[in-house]
């Protein structure tokens, strides 16, 4: 079943096409990776898929609903969650509160209830706290439940970002370079976390440079270059695609050597 569908998507910045004429669809429950050299338009695409950028042309569909031109919070409300390459952690709050923010969508809290501290609100807050704790444990941050966000190490912050995105109960989760800046063992933990996410039924879209991670965990890969689709398919197919090899490594002796193995 197709969860996300993108038609003729383009984004132009003053003459430069960051993304041009993209068309693809993502099946529910899959792990879908988007790779490509730097500047290929990956983050732009993620920004388009979360409403942060408005497309110059093209359409975006989640299930049967068209999301194009809606505000970012509406994308979130419809079920698209996202993490950030440069982290957008709320450093003025505790780790737990960061995750609780993600639950705002699902908490019906009227202004009056907030101002006058209704008992129903107190109960809802308790439930929110428990859910946030559960999510912190799910992503492996159980030890940081009482901590302030600014005392977390970098690897933990990346997972905090994921926990917050999970709190929005997304159908589709976009992970923007979750393994960037992590050492190999931390990257392996992210690998395991992504598998856990996929198992729990969330469709994961992964933007990554870490090829070992990508090749290991993806069901389907989309390769971008200069904002356009370069190749698409299973991990094996993409790995062997000569166009992909050329885009990453150029043509020549080095390229010939990677015909059989993985890129890392």
């Amino acid at each position: 079943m197709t969860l996300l569908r993108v038609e003729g998507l383009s984004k132009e910045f003053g003459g430069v096409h960051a993304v041009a004429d993209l068309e693809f669809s993502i099946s529910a429950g899959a792990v879908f990776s988007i790779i490509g050299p730097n500047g290929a338009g990956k983050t732009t695409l993620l920004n388009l898929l979360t409403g942060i950028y408005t497309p110059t042309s093209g359409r975006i569909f989640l299930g049967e609903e068209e999301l194009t031109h809606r505000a970012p919070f509406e994308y979130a409300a419809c079920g698209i969650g996202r993490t950030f390459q440069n982290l957008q952690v709320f450093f003025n709050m505790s780790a737990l509160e960061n995750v609780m923010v993600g639950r705002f969508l699902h908490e019906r809290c009227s202004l009056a209830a907030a101002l006058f501290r209704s008992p129903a609100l107190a109960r809802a807050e308790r439930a929110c706290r428990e859910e946030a704790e559960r999510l912190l444990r799910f992503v492996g941050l159980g030890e940081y439940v009482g901590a302030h966000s600014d005392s977390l190490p970098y690897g933990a912050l990346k997972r905090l970002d994921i926990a917050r995105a999970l709190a929005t109960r997304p159908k589709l989760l976009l992970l923007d370079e979750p393994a960037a800046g992590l050492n190999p063992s931390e990257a392996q933990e992210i690998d395991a976390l992504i598998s856990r996410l996929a198992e729990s039924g969330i469709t994961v879209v992964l933007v990554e440079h870490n090829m070992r991670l990508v090749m290991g965990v993806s069901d389907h890969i989309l390769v971008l270059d200069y904002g356009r689709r370069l190749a698409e398919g299973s991990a094996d197919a993409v790995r062997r695609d000569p166009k992909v090899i050329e885009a990453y490594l150029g043509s020549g002796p080095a390229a010939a050597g990677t015909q059989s193995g993985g890129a890392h």
Partner: protein
Amino acid sequence: MSAQFLQFFLAGLTIGAIYALVALGFSIIYNASHVINFAQGEFVMIGGMTTVSLTAIGWPLPFAIAAAVLAAAAIGLALEKFAVEPARGASVVTLIIITIGASILLRGLATLVWDKKFHALKPFSGDAPIGIGGATVLPQSLWVLGMTLVIVLLLTWFFGRTLLGKALLATSHNRLAAQLVGINVRTVLLAAFGLSAALGAIAGILVAPITFTAWDIGVMLGLKGFAAAILGGLGSGPGAVLGGLVLGLLEAMGAGYLSSAYKDVIAFVIILAVLVFRPSGLLGTRSTDRV
């Protein structure tokens, strides 16, 4: 063209030129440091008041003017060094409060150094009105327009041809890159503040014979100069000039044809409209954030 319209037009151009000079001061500082200097209006006040004091004790006008401009520039340097530099990297709100605090401090000092009364500065070349096409214009207005034009030309030369000017421009476009090519950003910032203060002071001196000067004339002039800078596009030199002239003209026309009591409101209504519909102003460029 009716004589009345011409009258308003010339009045608008005159005050618009003053706004343009003040707006240029805002733009130069904003470009160099991304700080909005809410104390800009006080330089206008300092220029006028200092000149009045010096001529009152017998200094010839040109020397008094030079001294006043230098004094204002010195205060501008002090402002950068003691107020803005220590707070580098602070949030927008913090910087706004600091420069507002500086403007209050300067006004307080002005009441101590001078007083709270209005003072007149003698017009540079007499006050016999000149007739132009049925309208009358004060000689001082011609001084205002003429000197503003000269200054704009001088600034164009400064930014286009001198090393310091080009360094200022470079810093405004990309501070890090400017540092990497060896530009001493600290010097550039000081120069920006000094230059803006000088511009403000000149505006104050030019307009003092027309509107009188006092300890608190800087407030409205500063705010309107700021409004003009935003109208033209914050950070754009030509925008500052255009914004100043347009604001002055609209204000004069509005005061003349609609209501003079609400003259000041006109300026701020225009600004609100610009901010809501086109915040980048007439000549500014839209910017996008990288996420």
